[in-house]
């Protein structure tokens, strides 16, 4: 058994991409480390977040750092955008699965593409990859995606996006036993990336029926 991270939810909004993840690393069903940031900002305009094996993700990021360092040494002014980082990570993950040594992670990459348009991409341990307007991994795939499909549209504002994510996370906290209520929000837009400090989602447990039985 290893340390693993839970759900991620990410959506595009008018002017950027917003993403949310809890700050828990689980060891099986034990809540092993709290306060761990599963969203990483990469370069100055890309966010990468993971569900799955923490050690594999760390190794992947080391591989990526090497690639970036190689790029920097070229000294040609080329900086990878989120779309390119998404492709690079896809190739790395597909390579490892073809080697029969998969990196057990589901990744969400957010940022912008070469034209400066918002980018949101998904990759899994097999190398399955695609671009999308919204996506979720882990239990949030079942819990949050239907809610997003119902409410999302391309004109959604930043505030509306934040409210939607908040609503989705609340359901995840209530239903996913491995979801922590300490949540991080992150966004990436023209002005760069920003990562919030962990915030507490307060769920109203007074509605729970065990209160009645007491």
């Amino acid at each position, binding site marked *: 058994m290893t340390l693993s991270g839970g759900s991620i939810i990410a959506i595009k909004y008018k002017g950027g991409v917003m993403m949310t993840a809890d700050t828990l690393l689980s060891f099986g069903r034990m809540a092993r480390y709290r306060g761990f940031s599963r969203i990483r900002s990469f370069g100055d305009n890309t966010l990468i977040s993971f569900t799955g094996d923490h050690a594999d993700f760390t190794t992947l990021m080391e591989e990526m750092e090497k690639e970036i360092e190689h790029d920097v040494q070229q000294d040609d002014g080329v900086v990878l955008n989120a779309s390119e980082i998404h492709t690079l990570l896809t190739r790395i993950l597909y390579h490892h*699965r073809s080697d*029969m040594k*998969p990196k057990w992670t589901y990744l969400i990459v957010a940022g912008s593409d070469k034209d400066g348009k918002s980018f949101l991409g998904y990759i899994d341990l*097999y190398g399955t990859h695609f671009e999308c307007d919204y996506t979720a991994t882990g239990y949030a795939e079942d819990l949050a995606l239907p809610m997003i499909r119902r409410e999302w549209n391309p004109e959604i504002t930043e505030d509306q996006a934040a409210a939607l994510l908040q609503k989705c996370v609340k359901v995840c906290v209530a239903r996913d036993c491995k979801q922590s209520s300490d949540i991080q929000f992150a966004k990436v837009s023209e002005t760069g990336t920003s990562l919030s400090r962990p915030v507490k989602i307060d769920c109203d447990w007074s509605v729970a029926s065990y209160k009645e039985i007491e």
Partner: protein
Amino acid sequence: MGEFSPYVDNGGTTLAIAGPDFVVIAGDTRLSTGYSILSRDVSKLFKYSDSIVMASSGMQADIAELRKQLLFTIEEYRVDNERDIELDAFYRLLATVLYGKRFFPYYSFNILAGISKEGKGVVYSYDAIGSADARTYGAAGSGQELVISILDAALKRKPDPLSIDEAIELGKSALKQATEREIHTGDSGEMYIIRAGRPAEYITFKLRKD
């Protein structure tokens, strides 16, 4: 712990129908694993030239890799021969690339559609390891059995030659029928209509999203 399986089935259905001087090739755009839909908008069609389109279903990651390998090779062909690759050569190329991975196959089921040197519409149908033959129509993927039955009934003993409008409607309707009964197929459909001496035309159509 069980051994890691490097394969996933991402589902989806593709088909192609050839006529005297045209060919249509279509597929749905759903990407799924098991019971969950990963995306409703991932293409199974890939256009290599004005008259060569490949439709692939199976494992999306393997298909992406296969397309990339083919693109490398046809670019090399273009540089070496100073002309674009033609359908008969591409047919052999795809078979060879697939068989080259005989002992760790690409999990992909491909249909190739194009116009032959004689100006006739041709469909080639492949298995995962490159066994292929020329047909007048074909289907592949998770809705293969449903689609092929519909195409058999419509085309096998058809007395008069197939018109292009008939082929387009048959292709669309066969995919729609598969979507009714097969959960890995749906969301939206796309189709290339390839006529002799003309660049391929691209159309999309709606499918059930449930």
